[in-house]
């Protein structure tokens, strides 16, 4: 594409923080309209991008520039897309905080949660976790930086399909209309539709909680079960997702939107999803440690199951799919046993959240 066709004559470049598979996909979409600067921690990754226009073997748009200086990227860009794993998210934000100002806009694409525990406590030693101990990524940004214009990106956006330039859509959620409008302006194209939503917490939670169900879907497939089982799981999973999501502060509307049901169906049907893969391999008798050992990026769902299970226990709620998945992941339960338990669980109302 020629430089002249782009409309960044006066606009500042756009930043992407983190260059995993989703980061790569987003950077490529952004680069169609804007000059993009990506931040990568490792100097060799920066070099690979600047010299060869590839990241981890995946090709990158030629106009994408890489840096490992948070200061530089914050100076150059007013809008930044942090796309790092939830485990490293807080640390990255702390590192960026000194260079961020209230005029910055951050739109993150991380579908995970983070724990906020009192000093000296870990998930194993703390007796209970409450809502205030769980932070979504937008809450981390709020806690660690002065940025207020925060948004998030969620929806059925499997990185591998985006990289192949297949049509897709996403949701940008923010309390600020200007963030939604900017996000749409930067991302929208003939094959990428962008919806807006004001309920940022609900949209973040949709993306986070659907990972639990994705692991379960993988497990069913791994057991060789068919579409009936999947239909059952998706619909019961949806109920559980809404139930948990409301308890954590999201609104039902968001969960039945693109970021909720849209993303749920995509991840539950695709072996391109990391979370799905975890479930699939579990059902084939592999242990969690084995699976984690040879994945190059984290499956957010594992951490989410652990966190949500502890939260549910304290809140006096029941979340049968999450609880049973926890047993399979961390207590050596067989997938068959967990499934057997779920089939006996006394669900009797089909839908009670609308």
């Amino acid at each position: 594409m020629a430089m002249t066709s782009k409309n960044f004559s006066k606009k500042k470049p756009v930043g992407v923080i983190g260059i995993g598979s989703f980061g790569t996909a987003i950077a490529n979409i952004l680069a169609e309209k804007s000059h993009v600067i990506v931040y990568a921690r490792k100097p060799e990754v920066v070099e690979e991008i600047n010299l060869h226009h590839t990241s981890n073997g995946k090709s990158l748009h030629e106009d994408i520039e890489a840096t490992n200086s948070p200061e530089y990227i914050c100076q150059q860009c007013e809008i930044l897309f942090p796309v790092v794993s939830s485990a490293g998210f807080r640390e990255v934000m702390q590192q960026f905080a000194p260079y961020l100002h209230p005029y910055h806009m951050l739109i993150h694409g991380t579908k995970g949660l983070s724990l906020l525990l009192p000093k000296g406590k870990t998930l194993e030693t703390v007796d209970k976790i409450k809502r205030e101990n769980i932070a979504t990524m937008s809450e981390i940004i709020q806690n660690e930086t002065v940025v207020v214009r925060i948004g998030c990106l969620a929806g059925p956006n499997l990185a591998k399909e985006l990289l192949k330039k297949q049509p897709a859509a996403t949701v940008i959620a923010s309390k600020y209309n200007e963030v939604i409008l900017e996000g749409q302006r930067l991302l929208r194209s003939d094959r990428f539709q962008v919806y807006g939503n004001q309920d940022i917490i609900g949209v973040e939670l949709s993306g986070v909680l659907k990972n639990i169900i994705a692991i379960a879907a993988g497990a069913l497939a791994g057991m060789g079960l068919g579409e009936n089982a999947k239909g059952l799981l998706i619909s019961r999973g949806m109920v559980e997702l809404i139930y948990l999501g409301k308890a954590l502060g999201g609104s039902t509307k968001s969960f039945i939107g693109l970021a909720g049901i849209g993303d749920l169906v995509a991840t539950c049907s695709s072996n391109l999803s990391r979370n799905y893969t975890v479930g699939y391999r579990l059902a084939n008798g592999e242990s969690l440690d084995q699976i984690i050992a040879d994945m190059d990026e984290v499956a957010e769902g594992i951490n989410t199951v652990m966190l949500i299970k502890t939260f549910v226990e304290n809140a006096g709620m029941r979340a049968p799919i999450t609880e049973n998945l926890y047993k399979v992941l961390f207590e050596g339960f067989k997938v068959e046993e967990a499934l057997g338990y779920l089939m006996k669980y006394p669900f009797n109302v089909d839908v009670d959240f609308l």
Partner: protein
Amino acid sequence: MTDDYIKHKYDPILHQKDEWPVVKLSKYRKEFIKLVAEASKERILNFTGHNVDLLREELETTLYREKMRIKQNPWVVDPDDDNEFWSGVKSSLVQLTSESNLSTEAKREGYHKILYNITTRYAEEIASSFKHSHYKATRRMVTFGFSRLLNAARVKGFKSLFSNQYTLQDKIQIIGETDQLRDLSSKGTIVMVPTHFSNLDSILIGWTISTLGMPPYIYGAGLNLFNIQIFSYFMNALGAYKVDRRKKNLPYIETLKTYSSKAIQFGCHSLFFPGGTRSRSGKIESKLKLGLLSTAIEAQRANYQKGMNDISGKIFIVPVTINYHFVLEAPSLIQEHLSLTGQERYYKESDEFSTSYKISKFLVKFFTKGSDISVSIGNAMDILGNYVDENGSSLDRHGRVIDTRDYFVSNNKISVDNQREEEYTSMLGKRIVEEFHKINRVFSSHLVAFTAFEILKNKNKKLDLFSLLRLPEEDLVISYELFSSECERVRQRIFELRDEGKVHVAPHLKTDIDSIIKHGLQNVGMYHARRPLIQNTSGEIITEDMSLLYFYHNRLDGYDLEKLF
């Protein structure tokens, strides 16, 4: 902020410019009203998208509501020509609508003119009639009168008439960030946001402001207060502008907001009771009315737009809590709260604050008997709720200086985005509530009322609030042993909270628990006919009015203390 109060004489602060904005504003009252009326008109036209039909509808609605108000809810303070004015509006509207041979342009102009007449009238109504000489006289009178009363009660004999041994500052203690407030008020513009429990608050805050040597603040006082003469006198003297809660039409609300915003931009220090009205439940406000608060944010943005990027254009939000043992209106407030929230049959008690006589009687009682009040001044914040340092610079959580202007910047320049500013307003509201809880000062009376109510609630776990409040007196008895040990537990927790910086305590809470209980029982709601909490002859703790006990208990709501039970 320390817990202890230091009696201190504050010299009057002089403004860096030769005149205080509030004085200047009263000098140029006419011009200012014009400015407000014009700006309000523009605002409303923007709202209606410059669509003539929408504007006409808006005007007709306003006219209808105003006619209804005049008919159904007239007040003493209403101007005499109220009816006349609105009849005039009516005939101009009718005329405009029926004239078919007028051009669209002429019609548009006609409607704009009617709108301008209305906003001008509203601006006149709202505008304060502050007079500096008047202000000084009131200030002297309050100080003199009150200190006579005080000394008459405490110093014996004829000399008491001239004694200055006790001053109002012994009675009403001012604690907290007074120096910062004084300092910033000579450099930038202050918006003070106090908690609101009693109609006395406005006088109390007015007195606090003048004791601290600051110029008068302008503030929106409910027009209903001007119905009571004694208040009307004080309010007019202290720079109050009038807020008429009966008028909920768009032109009025926009004129009111414009007035506030323009006055802040003019540099006038302002006072909002962000809870809107007095706290009916006795709880510290947790949901704020954001309308007026938004004008502070708007004014800050407007100042930046004008290029006032230094401290002279900066607006500081200063939360204040007023701590009482006793709220005169408590019985009617809590009745109103309960009838609004609950099943209890609604019955209206007479407003205890309705006459000047009753208020004077209360004032005499207040100054001659015990019951202290303290006013806690919180840390100044910028309009996003960031603390500011001694230079008035905003600090982030890690102590880094940030530029407040950046909150309004997009693409390197200040942009106007109403939706963004709405979000900022609600963020600021949350921060103010947080600060209220931190600077709130726990008194012995709050402790005993809270503990007693929680014990009774815990004894009757199965009852909901309204059944609990209706329990017969014989079920409302607490043994002294239980009461004192529970009070001690609550006190321990309060001190833990204090060490975490989440609340403040009055020094009298540091004595032994028996003295605290005694002090608390003496003071909690002390002038009510039916006392919320007393000790009977056999030493047990009983209540004469469970609803009142609930009211005073609510002061410690929001600290999770109920989890101790």
